[in-house]
């Protein structure tokens, strides 16, 4: 294990961790601040990834677009398109109670996935889009390009982080938390609960879309196998819960630490004795499953719990 290798591994963990941090920040706006249960994260992630990839690749005979736009425009487009999809979904589903909303959003994510796989005029179907550009590709080549991309990602993460912080403390954020903690009294206080929840959902989805776009630029190639839909949704939830929902710093810390654990388990399972070589990947999945139970039972309040006192209401009369 040489040091430069270790360094570049760390870079890759931080890149993936940065993408997950964005997803977590998006989910934190929806769940941590607004109490909206989104279980279709992967759908909005994929929408953003395809939006950005289609906008920034060069023309192709096989699918729509190839607009050859700069990466930033692609990411902006990813945010807008995912946000709009999120808004439309919220418009239809937001009245549902939490668990039903979760089910509906899983269904919508699955429908989005099927559209991506089947509508090859739009997405080139299962063959995927290749040649997705990286931002500032001219600055560095080879592995050092990853460092440029790392900086690029974290600039965005930090920008979104400050945006979320502002949002959290703004009157809008305060109203949102009031709704989260007690919908009835908030609506009695004259808040348009539904409108607030739709806005939260759309903003969260837009951020998830940007995360998706970034992943497309990182892989440079996008196909329906970019992520396992249920797995990515689940991972992001674990990250937010582990980090401390309702807290933006917690969302980032949770994303980084869970992704780190997820990734390094393989290094350990690869050290199993040779008889286990064909099973080491399953041992890893087992380990991840058990580790998760441990996190849930021991870190249930999150590594960094929400600091601002919740707007408590008396449970009585």
């Amino acid at each position, binding site marked *: 294990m040489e040091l430069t290798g270790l360094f570049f591994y760390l870079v890759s963990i931080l890149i993936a961790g940065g993408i997950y941090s964005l997803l977590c920040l998006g989910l934190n706006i929806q769940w941590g601040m607004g109490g909206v249960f989104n279980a279709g994260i992967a759908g909005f992630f994929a929408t953003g990834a395809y939006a950005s990839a289609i906008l920034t690749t060069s023309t192709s005979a096989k699918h729509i677009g190839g607009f050859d736009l700069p990466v930033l425009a692609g990411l902006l487009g990813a945010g807008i398109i995912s946000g709009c999809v999120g808004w439309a979904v919220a418009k239809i589903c937001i009245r549902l109670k939490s668990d039903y909303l979760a089910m509906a959003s899983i269904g919508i994510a699955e429908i989005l996935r099927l559209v991506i796989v089947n509508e090859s005029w739009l997405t080139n179907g299962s063959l995927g889009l290749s040649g997705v550009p990286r931002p500032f590709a001219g600055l560095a080549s080879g592995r050092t390009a990853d460092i440029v991309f790392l900086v690029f990602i974290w600039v965005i993460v930090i920008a979104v982080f400050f945006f979320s912080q502002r949002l959290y403390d703004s009157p809008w954020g305060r109203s949102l938390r009031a709704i989260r903690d007690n919908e009835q009294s908030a609506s009695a206080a004259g808040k348009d609960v539904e409108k607030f929840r739709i806005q939260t959902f759309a903003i969260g989805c837009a951020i998830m879309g940007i995360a998706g776009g970034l992943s497309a630029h990182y892989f440079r190639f996008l196909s329906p196998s970019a992520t396992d839909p249920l797995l990515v949704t689940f991972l992001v939830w674990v990250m937010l819960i582990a980090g401390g929902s309702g807290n933006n710093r917690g969302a980032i810390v949770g994303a980084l630490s869970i992704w780190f654990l997820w990734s390094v388990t393989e290094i350990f399972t690869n050290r199993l004795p040779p008889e286990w070589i064909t099973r080491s990947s399953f041992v890893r999945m087992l380990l991840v499953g058990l580790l*998760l139970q441990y996190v*849930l039972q021991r870190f249930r309040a999150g590594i960094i719990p929400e600091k601002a006192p919740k707007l408590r209401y008396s449970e009585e009369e």
Partner: protein
Amino acid sequence: MIEFINFYLVPGFAIGSVYALGAVGISMIFGILRFAHFAHGDLMTVGVYGVFAATVVFPVNPFLLVPVGMALAIFAALFVDKVFYQPLRKLPTIYTVISSFGVALIFRSLIQIIGGSENRVFGSGIRPPLILFDTFRLSSLHVQAVTTTAVIAVVLHIFLSKSMTGRSMRAVADDPELAQISGLDTEKVVRWTWIIGAALAAIAGVFAGLDTSAHPNLGWNLLLPMFAAAILGGIGKPMGAMAGGFIIGLAEELSSYHWIGESALISPSYKTAVAFVIMIALLIFKPQGLFKGRLL
């Protein structure tokens, strides 16, 4: 018409019976323990592999060994409930939902570590269909699946409406707080929920495994349509979930029938989407499900 019955309607009922049996457990767990059990599909797989392991030891008709699979699934369900779900019961449901997702990973990886990840077939060769009146071609397995499901539905209905445990289960699904105030033994109800849910999941898994082949992703791949079925039938309504399962199964198959003109109404690639569109439409317009389940 004959084509419609042979290739759309009957397969729809057959896959529907798999969904139906799986959805009963999901619906009851959702109703009584109040969380979406993501490990339910993998519980099915556990049952299938139990049967499979038994066929290696006792080479008889796999149907005779289904109780082994049921027992294994029940044991697995009770074990994970005790160790993983119970400590989280007082927390918001999202914790248990995530935990169940982790349990799904645990089940699947254990199956792969112990049983390997290859496809396994229960029996070789194709099963010639039963041909009735020279026109209806029915797979005997499908007939078995649908009749077994029907029998289970009747037995389950009697159990839920007549027995003390069954009524307690429905009571807890209806209103857990009131059930507690009425002094019902909620832990016993929870236990029975797992027992019934896991046993039916194992049976469903065996039908799915016999129809095609058994592999570690078998149950996981069936999970989403089963959720749709459970929601369709109304949360906490086992009989509703049964009906929901058949509706989803039929909708998936019938949506690609050439109702209008020559080509399929909806491309078969969108089969799964059909199930979800139905589910979402129902959630919006009739959130208690078709059979007045509990609103969460």
